[in-house]
């Protein structure tokens, strides 16, 4: 209790007045119109985010985060469905990747047997001999140069203007 009885009464009067007046003032204020007048962009521009970030103790925040809970909430299946694997694979230059890494030897060990390798060799030899016969067969009848302008394959498979690589 205040040692001054007058001061004490004034204080009580001020308190009771405040109890009556403050709610009236608050009711009278149109908060929406005030918010409308506030230029949020300007406020954001004034805020020095770097300073705030510097004050934040990230380690402490990380310690508080329950990562397991977040992981449990993530729907991995939905994320996978959204990913366009084909687009990603198309962007990869497999040849250069294989040349730079040991992926080549891994592929060789995992996907090929002796039979596959033998088939590769036989087929490649066949392609070479095919080209040889085509080139020389046509050279014999004086059409060697024309062959170079022949189509490489059917239009649906190689495009209408693709030329044979002989």
């Amino acid at each position, binding site marked *: 209790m205040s040692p001054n009885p007058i001061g004490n009464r004034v204080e009580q009067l001020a308190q009771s007045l405040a109890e009556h007046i403050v709610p009236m003032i608050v009711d009278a204020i149109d908060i929406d119109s005030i918010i409308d007048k506030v230029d949020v962009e300007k406020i954001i521009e004034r805020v020095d985010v770097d300073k705030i970030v510097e004050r934040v103790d990230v380690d402490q925040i990380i310690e508080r985060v329950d990562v397991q809970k977040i992981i449990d909430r993530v729907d991995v299946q939905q994320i996978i469905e959204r990913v366009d694997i084909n687009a990603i694979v198309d962007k990869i230059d497999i040849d250069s990747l294989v040349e730079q890494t040991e992926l080549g*030897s891994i592929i060789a060990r995992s996907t090929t047997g002796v039979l596959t390798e033998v088939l590769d*060799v036989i087929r490649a030899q066949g392609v070479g001999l095919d080209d040889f016969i085509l080139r020389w067969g046509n050279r014999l009848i004086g059409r060697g140069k024309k062959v170079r302008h022949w189509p490489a394959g059917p239009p649906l*498979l190689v495009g209408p203007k693709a030329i044979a690589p002989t």
Partner: protein
Amino acid sequence: MTTVPVPSPALTVGRQGNYAGAVSRLAAFAADVGASWGLYTLGVALLNAALKLATGHSFTLSNHQLAAFIVLTLWEFLYFTYQWAVSGKTLGMAILGLQVVTRAGAPISGRQAVFRTVGLGITLFLTLGIGFLGIVYQRDRRALNDYIAGTAVVYDWDARAARLRWIARKEGPAGTAAPQEHII
């Protein structure tokens, strides 16, 4: 033992879908003739054994030449037609990495497979093989039976994978250099 050089990258990359040439096609045909004859002989032997078990009498198809000719013709017709109709390739073509497609490059129909087999017989026996010269002298490397059926033959093997294997062999396991030739 035969020493075969490794395939050159220039030969093995980017040829999928290209018209196949004479040597690959001839090799595939030879493999098919061998396979179909082998299966025919096996079938006849099994049939003979089954008949012997069932009736006690031995039956030799070669003693009935007309029947043998008809059965063999039917068998060859089925061998080629069925495989072309189902997958566009026979066993020999699968080994050599070839496929029959329409002239435009689409999968062939059963009707085209039938025409191609009949055309194969015509090209082989009526033109005495001259119909195959189109594989070397025609722009789209089509033989007479291809013209009859409206088809073409293309390379179908995974040349890109072969290229990767070739690079892998060149690197060798754990970076060791592999020999430049394969002995088969």
